[in-house]
């Protein structure tokens, strides 16, 4: 292993340790915001798979978070365990995501965005109008927080660890996925679907798969969202959440593994930091995002990527120059 690799691993361990240890002294507000960050990161990772790796534009991720949240809310307030709700939400979102993927086989880019936008509106109407199931516009309140291995997680700190732990598990799973043949197939799909097809990749199946897995992660985020706020109503799962998640992926760096982490951090934490400006905080936040995307359309990690590849190019040209010089010297 090279020194750079050790450095990377060391940095990762420091970040993880900080995420575990530092919040111990946080107040309830800080813990809530961090938990929200963890939950939104999971949803954004799902969208990053669909959008960043497989290249399919989706404006329905918020709806899947909603489906997960409602599944958790309905099941746990009827006394069923959260882990069961998690299973149901994953299966449900996977299946619906798979079905929603079919239009993606025929339409691309903004046309696909329209199809998923329609689905997003449809999901909102179901949440709001099907009173018998979702309690309509009144929402479901007093959602219990789960007990894990006999430990209650009602207090903010234990529940933050539930969110962080889930984020850890999901991260590992996605890390593995994008390094598996599936992940490579997703990227091939994004880069050039015709070539991917000619290389024997079943683009049809992988397109559906990208949608289904991404949506299932939205469902996972939703099952955590419900016990986090302990109240669900249809409004937070309207189109704006899907757009927020889309922004998180793009701002963080679409197609980068760590993009959603940074994107969610910006979308959840930046407005909170800017709150001291009172009425201007949302405006400043919007301006900051616009400036960032003008400067680097590939997001924050895009800047880093550019910097690293420039350095590599420079190093390579330096080596080339040396080699060339050597060649010229030796007769």
């Amino acid at each position: 292993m090279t020194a750079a690799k050790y450095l990377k691993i060391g940095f990762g361990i420091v970040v993880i340790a900080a995420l575990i240890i530092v919040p111990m002294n946080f107040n309830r507000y800080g813990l809530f915001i961090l938990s929200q960050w963890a939950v939104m990161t999971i949803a954004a990772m799902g969208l990053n798979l669909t959008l960043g790796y497989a290249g399919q534009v989706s404006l329905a991720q918020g709806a899947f978070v909603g489906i997960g949240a409602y599944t958790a809310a309905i099941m746990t307030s009827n006394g069923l365990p959260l882990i069961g709700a998690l299973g149901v939400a994953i299966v449900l979102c996977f299946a619906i995501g798979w079905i929603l993927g079919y239009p993606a086989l025929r339409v691309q880019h903004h046309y696909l965005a329209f199809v998923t936008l329609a689905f997003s509106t449809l999901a909102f109407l179901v949440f709001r109008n099907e009173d018998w199931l979702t309690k309509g516009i009144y929402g479901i309140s007093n959602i219990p927080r789960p007990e894990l291995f006999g430990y209650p997680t009602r207090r903010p700190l234990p529940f933050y660890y539930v969110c962080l732990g889930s984020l850890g598990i999901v991260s590992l799973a996605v890390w593995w996925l994008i390094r598996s043949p599936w992940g490579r197939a997703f990227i091939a799909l994004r880069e050039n679907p015709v070539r991917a097809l000619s290389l024997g990749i079943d683009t049809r199946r992988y397109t559906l798969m990208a949608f289904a897995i991404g949506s299932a992660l939205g469902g996972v985020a939703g099952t955590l969202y419900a016990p986090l706020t302990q109240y669900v109503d249809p409004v937070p799962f309207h189109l704006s959440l899907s757009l927020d998640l889309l922004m998180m992926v793009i701002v963080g760096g679409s197609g980068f593994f760590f993009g959603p982490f940074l994107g969610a951090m910006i979308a959840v934490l930046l407005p909170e930091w800017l709150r001291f400006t009172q009425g201007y905080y949302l405006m400043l936040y919007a301006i900051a995002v616009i400036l960032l995307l003008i400067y680097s359309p590939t997001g924050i990690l895009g800047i880093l990527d550019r910097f690293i590849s420039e350095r590599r190019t420079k190093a390579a040209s330096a080596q080339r120059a040396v080699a060339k010089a050597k060649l010229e010297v030796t007769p």
Partner: protein
Amino acid sequence: MKPVFLASALLATVLTGAAIAQSGAPIKLANVAELSGGGATVGTNWKNGIDLAIEEINSKGGVLGRKLEVTHADSQSNPGVARAQVQKALDAEPYVLLGPGYSGSVKVTAPLAAEAGIAQIMGGEAAELTQAGNKFLFRTSFGQQSSMPKVAKYINDELKAKSVAIVWVNNDFGKGGRDSISKEFAKYNIKVAADLSTEAGQADFAADVSKIKAAAPDAVFVYVNEEESARILKELKRQGITVPLVGETTLVGQKVVELAGDAANGARGHVGLTTDAPVELIKAFRDKFVKKYNYVPDHNGLKGWLAIYMIKATTEKMGKVDSKGFADALHGFTITAAKEPGILMDATFDANGDIDRQGFLVEIVEGKQVVKQVLPKLNN
């Protein structure tokens, strides 16, 4: 001995110093409201009402000699964000928590305030909010469970209607009103001829009105926001519907009259809290508000103002700034306008935190709101 003596003397000075600072320090309030998103009008009116009241109280020397100070936080009209902001506000241990205005956001934050033992004065109107046994939650306006029975009684006794069409806006405000009044109609055996849900911000009511026309009811109950009220009134007039049009607060507001013009004539309704009420103190409030903010507030502006005066009256009744005792002191307390003009109209708070106050039945006659009947407080 000497160092101990010195130390205790020092400690005593510091403690008394702290105590003096305490009694002169501002009383901290925290407001969490819908300052952006779908509820921005609600939250902004509420916030401005609060600021106006605080400014007035502070210019007159504050409460028990201490100034009031408020922090405003934006819930983005989202219950999740509201929860975070209320958590943040409670971590700073305010004297009283103000807001939010949306019933959903109240539902998610009320348990937090109750757990912290801090009174919460809010703007939500959904019936169930004060029925969950929360001892720290207070309304600033009638809940739908107290306004809708009055409307239903009027429709039954005065209009003698046997069938009514209900038009409501599909959010927690509209749905709550629709559910409450349907229950009341059932008691009087009034048939719901048409039950029409509309969207917030809906522009075209032609289809809804033709459904009403087809159902041929004896009266129409309209429960949508002000702008939409004006639009549907115009459409009702255009399609020649002449049966009585009844509403609650929103249908007969000044803004509706301005927007709907002639079409508003004949519209009537129950009004619990309105800046158009024929009460001198309310007119004075309205003038002050318009002078400072250059627009006529809706009832949320009044609610924010009242919340602050509820705090003032209750604190003066207790004679001390006691966050823990505040809720107990406000339960069962009647604030009279004679003693505390800021409360505008006599108001009593019951054990659930519900408010009891005069109401009005008004009708729009030639573009003016005319009070037809003053409904007394339920319990005098």
